[in-house]
């Protein structure tokens, strides 16, 4: 059976859009991303201590939790999204503790029930895979791992082992929302990753503009945009969908016509 990821990445370079669940009207915001042309959705699970995130996504986490978002709400947002959009791959992205709080099996089961295709857990490296990986694979939910500029050739096989869906290349050593890496270093890194893996490689961290997205889409299978979208949610509140749709459309155009 072809997965939603395979279908999405088969069409050419894909635009992957991130927003934090429970920050603003998430259902309307997600619909706007899809209408704008997002190929894959990453839905952030809010956490009190988002250690790998810069100020924009940290604040989105806090806004969401202050608004009372619970894990059950994130799964409700996910399953309602799946009901409205049967084909768009949906990824949950977050931190280990909320994912294991009721047990990894419970979490994986909820993902499967809600139609979640993949999970990115920032603070579970391959060394601690037993914490979450087996439960996800058991339910056929993809574990999407991160590779970074510090992931050397010796480590890469361990990172790829047990991962599926796509590989997320974090192009800068740093937190989300910082400067983008130099295009040259991205090209080198993506070439190495693609030589070592059979799954698509998406590149993120610091991508804000159509120009950046287009340059990356020439070499990578996907481009991830997060903080720039989260900023719009913060700025425009209930009016965010129109702005999200517009930015996503220009990013999607850039990504889809890059090659």
């Amino acid at each position, binding site marked *: 059976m072809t997965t939603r990821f395979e279908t999405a990445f088969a069409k050419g370079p894909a635009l992957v859009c991130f927003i934090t669940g429970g920050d603003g009207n998430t259902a309307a915001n997600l619909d706007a991303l899809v209408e704008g042309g997002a190929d894959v959705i990453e839905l952030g699970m809010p956490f009190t201590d988002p250690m790998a995130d810069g100020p924009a996504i*940290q604040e989105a986490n806090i806004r969401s939790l202050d608004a009372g978002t619970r894990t059950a709400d994130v799964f409700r947002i996910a399953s309602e999204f799946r009901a409205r959009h049967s084909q768009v791959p949906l990824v949950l992205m977050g931190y280990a503790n909320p994912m294991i*709080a009721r047990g990894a099996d419970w979490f994986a089961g909820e993902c499967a029930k809600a139609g979640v295709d993949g999970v990115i857990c920032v603070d579970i490296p391959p060394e601690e895979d037993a914490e979450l990986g087996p439960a996800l694979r058991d339910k056929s939910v993809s574990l999407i791992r*991160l590779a970074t500029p510090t992931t050397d050739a010796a480590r890469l096989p361990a990172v790829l082992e047990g991962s599926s869906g796509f590989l997320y290349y974090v192009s800068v050593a740093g937190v989300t929302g910082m400067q983008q890496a130099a295009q040259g270093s991205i090209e080198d890194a993506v070439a190495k990753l693609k030589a070592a893996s059979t799954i698509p490689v998406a590149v993120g961290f610091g991508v804000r503009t159509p120009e950046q997205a287009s340059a990356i889409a020439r070499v990578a299978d996907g481009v991830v945009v997060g903080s720039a979208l989260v900023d719009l949610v913060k700025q425009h509140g209930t009016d965010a969908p129109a702005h999200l749709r517009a930015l996503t459309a220009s990013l999607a155009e850039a990504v889809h016509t890059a090659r």
Partner: protein
Amino acid sequence: MTAPTPVNSFRSLPDETGHFGQFGGRYVAETLMPLILDLEKEYRKAQQDPAFWAEFDALMKDFVGRPSPLYYAPRMTEHFRGLAPAGKGPKIYFKREELNHTGAHKINNCIGQILLAIRMGKKKIIAETGAGQHGVATATVAARFGLPCKIFMGAKDIERQKPNVFRMKLLGAEVVSCESGSQSLKDSMNDALRYWVANVHDTFYIIGTAAGPHPYPELVRDFQSIIGKEAREQMLEKEGRLPDMLVAAVGGGSNAIGLFHPFLDDPEVAMTGIEAAGHGIETDKHAASLTGGKPGILHGNKTYLLQDEDGQITEAHSISAGLDYPGLGPEHSWLHESGRVNYVPITDTQALEAFQLCCELEGIIPALESAHALAALPQLTAEMDEDKLLVVNVSGRGDKDIFTVAEALGVEL
């Protein structure tokens, strides 16, 4: 450096993957993983290198002022004997870590870690701090070795620990205010980790307690174990036998594990770790992660954490900034579940009483953290025979806390 430990020893962990039973581990972002593995490799080499320990020992002696005394506390002993049932009330000793350079045990660990940083060729130092004691100790060793240093500190802690903030600045450190979350120790650790991820190539993170990703809990414990090794020799010299009870406050758990670890395989030595119970464990304002929390993952390790059903971390509260943390080191979680160490909660009010009692009876102003350990004495001494020997780790001096204590007692300075 040390003799091999037997397999079914309490001292043989962590295992080669950095776990203490189900606790510990390396739960960090991929960017940090290679560095953590490097650190472990470098530490393994240092462990086998007599020159490393020779330098460590020399600095301990002449820079830190070790060994710290094991002091018989006569008036505290008499006081509690007077309150205890007939025949009860052990001899009370203080392990006087408050006499160390910079006024707490924190410096022991900082010396060890900065020597590792230098071996690894790192050029910059960062650290988190709660009470400011670890920040001061880090700034001190950074000055001593001429490395630039940034200290991350919660905005709330900067406010309540002003003297230590100024000390750090005098020592040449930059103090970075952390404005997010509860603005205390947990948040300073988040910000230190964020900075570290972006600067791994040249920066060494000196973690201040026996927590964080492997190998930190192990190496911090090893450096702090000088406390227990000395206490062991000193007690054998003074009393000709081992102590019957060890007591220490547990924030992240470094002073406690430092005292406990060398005694873990002596079954006759009982141990009590003190958690901060803030306004009481029945309220939501406490920092007792073993009593009021459950296992989870934060700051690179699996351990007991204060959290809600969704796994969101809840805010800790303690009058003592150094204990105001919603978790503790993974080895303590394991010692708790294995039953080897008994952990007891002590409230702000109990700690304040013990603080004053220690000042008045022994002429020693203890840190509020250490006052939590002293506050276990009423109960422990009432249960122990008078020929028993009890050691309290006075982990730090209380000069930094006088403003907090004055405010709590309603005194205007």
